[in-house]
Structure formats: structure tokens, C-alpha cells
């Protein structure tokens, strides 16, 4: 195995271990990191949705974007670019979030859930593989969202990192804009949103993982995609590293509880666990990266990826305002409809964007 493969495997091990440590220090179980859940919590903290149990400005997300930005700047890779079907990507971000909240987690949390012994996550993982496989079908058929262009100004790429830095400022300052309403910023008093590792540690964890993910190009959908497409296992090694790192520390900390029933922040509706991550896998493959990768690209100045991130935050608000999001009790009817509709619409986007 060459050096780069060792590096991504070790980076994965570190990320998995950091995730387990974050749980130990207060994050919800099997949720050391979850890009979808944490963006949803941020949407809640801003008051874009009013689900009281999932509202917090997660410092991990801020750290990921800023860590990736600083690393990209040092490596000379920070460059503002965009213009590749930006609105289409935004809409795809909305549906990627719907899929994630039907399953209850992004692909990263899926790995962490499997490492915690949650068998429902294995069902989700099968759906994810099927989704990525369907995405590869469209890619082979000639799917293309078009070229991005470099901008003559770097300001565009700084806007999202600055937005997240501003969120950190508000978080530290503790501003309450509308005291009568109790926020924003809103903070959960109970439920997953109230469970969090100390701010400084969460932020540091985000910065470190942002650095590692930027350097290794870590991408969970990419790992499976490259294996199907060209039998390349580089990104897959990162995936395996995360699983092993989290698994070992979960066992050490006593978090590992195998089974289907009564898993933390999970439901047992197999078909929706499968289809939720199917939608995420399909969408992520067409977008060129999983939710984590979209955040890292945002930090590198990719404004198309930033549109996906904004789409995911808006999508999270839709999920809770329109009662699409799953809970431990299962997936509500509207969530089931939205998930199927999402698969149809993303399939249509995949089919129609065929290059001549």
C-alpha cells in the first residue's frame, strides 16, 4: 500500500476516534459527527424551523468549513469558483437533506451508527450503495452539470466561511435577537439539540477533521463510487478507517450495543432506512460528493458546493416545518412521500443532464 493510502486510512481512524470522543464528552449517541443533523440543528438555532429538540449552532460545522479553508489557503488551493448549474445543485441539496432526515443521518453518521452496533444503519448502508450505484449509471451515461469557472475575485468563496465565522461570533456572544420569542439564536433545552460536547472541543474537532478531510479529499459517496467505477479503493480506505476508529473507541467506552431495536436517534422502518440513504447516495454521486465533502469544498472556495450546503440548511427547515423528518417513532407519511418524490426528481435530473 502506498503512502497516500496509509495517510487516508490513518486520517479515517482519527476522525472515527474523534467522533467517539465527542460522544463521550456530550454529543448524542452515534452522533459525534453528522453533517445533516448538525446543519439541521443550525437551521433550528437560526429559527428557520421551530422543532425545539434540534436547535444548536454546532461548532463542529463551523470548524469543518474554517479548517478546510485555512488548510486550502496554506496549500494554495483556495480559489473561488462556481457556475455549474448552481440552482440545480441547491435543489439537490434540499433533497439530499430530506433523504438524510428520513434515514436520520448523513453517510458519515451511517458509518458511526454501524460502528455503534446499529443494524438499521446497515440497512441504510445497503440503500446508500444502491443509490451510489444508480448515480454511477447516470455518470456512465454521460451525466454532467457543466463546467465551473474560476472567478477573478476571491470574495465569493469567502462568503460562506465568513457566514460561519459570524455564527461563531453570535454563539460566543450569546445574542438573543427577540427575547420575547426566546431567540434566535434558539438552543434546545431537551432532546438531541441539548446534548453537546464543550464548545471549544467541538470547534477544535471540526478544525482537525476539516484539515484531514481537505488533505485526503475524504468522501463517503466517492469511496463507493470509485470502487464501482474504476475499482479504486483509496477513498474507501478512509471510510473503513472511520468505521474502525469509532468501533474501537465505542467498545472501550461501552457505547457498542448491537441490534435493531432501541438504537439512539434511529427508527426500524427498514424500507425508509434503505430509501432515505438511497436518495442521499444518488444525489451525492451526481453532485460529486457527500454532505461532508460539500462542506470541505465550500471551505476551498467552491460556491457551487456552498449552494448545496445552503440547500441542505433550507431543506432541513422544510423537513421540520412540513413534518417530513423521521424520529425514533418512524417516518411520517409526508416524509415517505417526499422521499419517493425526491428519488423521482433526482432521477429525472440525472436522466436529463446527459451530455450529447
Amino acid at each position, binding site marked *: 500500500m502506498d503512502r497516500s493510502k496509509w495517510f487516508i486510512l490513518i486520517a479515517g481512524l482519527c476522525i472515527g476516534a474523534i467522533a467517539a470522543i465527542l460522544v463521550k464528552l456530550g454529543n448524542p449517541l452515534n452522533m459525534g459527527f453528522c453533517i445533516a443533523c448538525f446543519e439541521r440543528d443550525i437551521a433550528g438555532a437560526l429559527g428557520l424551523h421551530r422543532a425545539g429538540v434540534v436547535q444548536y449552532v454546532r461548532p463542529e460545522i463551523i470548524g469543518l468549513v474554517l479548517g478546510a479553508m485555512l488548510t486550502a489557503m496554506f*496549500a*494554495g*488551493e483556495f*480559489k473561488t*469558483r462556481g457556475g*455549474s448549474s448552481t440552482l440545480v445543485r441547491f435543489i439537490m441539496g434540499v433533497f439530499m437533506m430530506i433523504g438524510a432526515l428520513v434515514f436520520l443521518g448523513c453517510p458519515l453518521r451511517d458509518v458511526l451508527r454501524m460502528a455503534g452496533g446499529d443494524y438499521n444503519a446497515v440497512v441504510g448502508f445497503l440503500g446508500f450503495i444502491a443509490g451510489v450505484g444508480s448515480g454511477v449509471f447516470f*455518470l*456512465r451515461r454521460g451525466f*454532467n*452539470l457543466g*463546467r*465551473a*469557472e*474560476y472567478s477573478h475575485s476571491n470574495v465569493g468563496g469567502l462568503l460562506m466561511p465568513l457566514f460561519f465565522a459570524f455564527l461563531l461570533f453570535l454563539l460566543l456572544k450569546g445574542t438573543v435577537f427577540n427575547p420575547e420569542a426566546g431567540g434566535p439564536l434558539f438552543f434546545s433545552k431537551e432532546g438531541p439539540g441539548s446534548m453537546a460536547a464543550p464548545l471549544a472541543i467541538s470547534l477544535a474537532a471540526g478544525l482537525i477533521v476539516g484539515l484531514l478531510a481537505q488533505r485526503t*479529499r475524504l*468522501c463517503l459517496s*466517492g469511496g463507493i*463510487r*470509485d470502487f464501482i*467505477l*474504476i475499482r*479504486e479503493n*483509496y477513498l474507501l480506505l478512509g471510510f473503513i478507517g472511520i468505521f474502525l476508529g469509532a468501533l474501537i473507541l465505542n467498545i472501550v467506552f461501552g457505547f457498542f450495543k448491537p441490534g435493531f431495536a432501541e438504537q439512539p436517534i434511529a427508527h426500524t422502518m427498514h424500507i425508509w432506512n434503505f430509501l432515505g440513504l438511497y436518495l442521499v447516495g444518488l444525489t451525492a454521486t451526481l*453532485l*460529486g*460528493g457527500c454532505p461532508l465533502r460539500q462542506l470541505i469544498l465550500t471551505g476551498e472556495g467552491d460556491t*457551487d458546493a456552498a449552494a448545496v450546503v445552503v440547500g441542505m440548511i433550507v431543506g432541513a427547515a422544510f423537513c421540520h416545518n412540513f413534518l417530513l423528518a423521521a424520529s425514533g417513532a418512524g417516518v411520517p407519511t409526508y416524509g415517505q412521500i417526499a422521499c419517493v418524490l425526491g428519488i423521482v426528481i433526482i432521477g429525472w435530473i440525472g436522466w436529463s443532464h446527459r451530455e450529447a
Partner: protein
Amino acid sequence: MEKIDVRGLSCPMPVIKTKKAMDQGAKDLLVVGTSQVSKENVMKLAGSQGYRVELTVDGKNEWEMKLNKQ
């Protein structure tokens, strides 16, 4: 020599376009692109398919390489 333009394309389009040309039997390819990630990925693909890589332009925001197979 066949020229493949992968400038501004996101993952994994550069690899797919290059591989398509390889699968059609091209022995000499000129690939131009922009991002560092796509450069790494195309080089990796070329290596795995037994192509010799000659990097003719290696800038921060632009690269160009010649791929050749005997």
C-alpha cells in the same frame, strides 16, 4: 493525439472522460484541467491503466499532461 478538456469539471467527470477515451483504445492523450484534485485523480487513473504520464503544465489553477501507452 486526442485532446480531452476537463477544465472546471467536478469529480469524477475528469476521470470518466479520460477513461472513456482510454477504453476506445487511444494510446496518446493530451488532458487539460484546472483543479489539483482532478490532476491527482487523472494521474492515478493513468498509472492504473499502464499509461506513462508527462506533466507539461503544472500551475496552481491549470495543468496539462500527456498520456502515452506503448
